[in-house]
């Protein structure tokens, strides 16, 4: 039996307790704890000392990587991570956690939806991007392409890298078609596949508990020349964002402010007191 590392598991437990509950309507399906820990090690090593942007991160890989490094449980980590996400609950959960454990110098987060042009402050700024987008089961990879394009727009003109985490099961034809589409689209942007770790992560996915995702790492093979503009996603592209007849309809998920962050919502239980103790 493999040895458990109590400190690593407890640190990942801190991260999982901090993750807002997933909303299935917008395809938030979270990575399982063991794979979250391993993915943090992987990203720490592959993006060592780099400035990294995460295009969406419900799994909390960014926070986990930086927290494990902060706790001296990882030897190496990115120099910095900035998270862009359209869910204010996720953005705030990262900001609050990093502030609580005092590593805001290494990680930050802001609200952004890939439907919009990438803000100029994030264009060409980072060494690497990371994305685990909606996997495009019923849209021929259109949602993945949108996230990857934003990642590429956020990275520098030369020596840029990326990590694309998407479904990978040879028995499911759509996963292989989407992988093909994404590798083709990456090549079109002068990125080549530099490493492929197939079928490695598991998720809390009730209808496909054994479906895994891969780490598809890409790097820029030709320097970007000239200018480019980051455009809003065209309506025909977000009409099938979550699949056929399932468009992207939400710009932001807003957090309902609460004094009870990280604790059970009080509408979900009631207390029955011992007699004379209420």
């Amino acid at each position, binding site marked *: 039996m493999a040895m458990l590392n109590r400190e690593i598991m407890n640190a990942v437990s801190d991260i999982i307790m901090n993750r807002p509950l997933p909303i*299935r*309507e917008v*395809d938030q399906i979270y990575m399982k704890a063991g794979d979250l820990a391993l993915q943090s090690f992987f990203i720490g090593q592959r993006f060592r000392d780099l400035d990294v942007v995460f295009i969406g991160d419900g799994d909390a890989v960014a926070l986990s990587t930086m927290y494990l490094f902060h706790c001296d449980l990882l030897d190496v980590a990115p120099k910095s991570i900035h998270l862009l996400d359209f869910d204010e609950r996720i953005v705030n959960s990262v900001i609050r956690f990093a502030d609580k454990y005092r590593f805001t110098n290494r990680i930050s987060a802001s609200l952004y939806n890939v439907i919009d042009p990438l803000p100029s402050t994030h264009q060409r700024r980072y060494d690497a991007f990371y994305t685990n987008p909606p*996997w495009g*089961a*019923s849209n021929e990879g259109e949602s993945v392409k949108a996230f990857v394009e934003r990642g590429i727009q956020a990275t520098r003109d030369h020596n840029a890298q990326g990590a694309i985490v998407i*479904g990978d099961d040879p*028995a*499911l*034809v*759509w996963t292989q078609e989407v992988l093909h589409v994404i590798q083709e689209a990456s090549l079109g942007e002068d990125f080549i596949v530099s490493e492929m770790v197939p079928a490695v992560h598991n998720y809390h*996915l*009730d*209808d*496909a*508990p054994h*479906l895994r995702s891969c780490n598809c790492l890409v790097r820029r093979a030709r320097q970007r020349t000239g200018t480019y503009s980051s455009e809003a996603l065209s309506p025909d592209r977000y009409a099938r964002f*979550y*699949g*056929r*007849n*399932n468009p992207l*309809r939400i710009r932001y998920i807003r957090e309902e402010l609460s004094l009870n962050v990280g604790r059970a919502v009080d509408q979900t239980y009631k207390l029955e007191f011992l007699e004379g103790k209420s």
Partner: protein
Amino acid sequence: MIRILTNGAGLIFMKIGIHAQEGVEDIIARKKREYEQAGMIFWGYGGNTCHPTTFIQPFAKTQAEHQAQVFLMMHKMTSNHNADPVSAKQYSEDGIEWKPIPEGIQVVGSRYAMVIGNLTEEQFDLNLRNLVVAMGPKRGALGTDYIQGHVDKGCFEYHERAETPEETELKHIDLYSPLKPPYAVFLK
């Protein structure tokens, strides 16, 4: 039934049983009265494999674009479901805009409901190996590889294949009904 189960037809397979402490025969009788009063039925259910906006609505709309009707096909089973019989007071097509539950409709102990027409009680066998998952991350998988464990319902396309009997996995269908717009709703 042959008329409904043509190649490429869309259907939702669902196992049904005791729900919110109410026996399935009582539910069927109550739902038939519901149809007489309201002209439609809200068939309550839960779980994410038939989520209203990410599975049922896009699936039924895509079929409707091809002038095809999606049918809910139900297989009775022995089960326990002891959720409290709390009646929904409101429904929503998108989870944002909420309306009162229509007059004559009563749906209990469920987060979601499929909107269906009248129930037809007709018995026939459905081969899960003729079903291909039509929606979600297991799209393209066979029904036999999907309906297992805690997964008891899903969106499928029917594709009949020639097989020897031992390769079949038959599920007895006890009743069915056509889905009606908006196909599935949220409840609270």
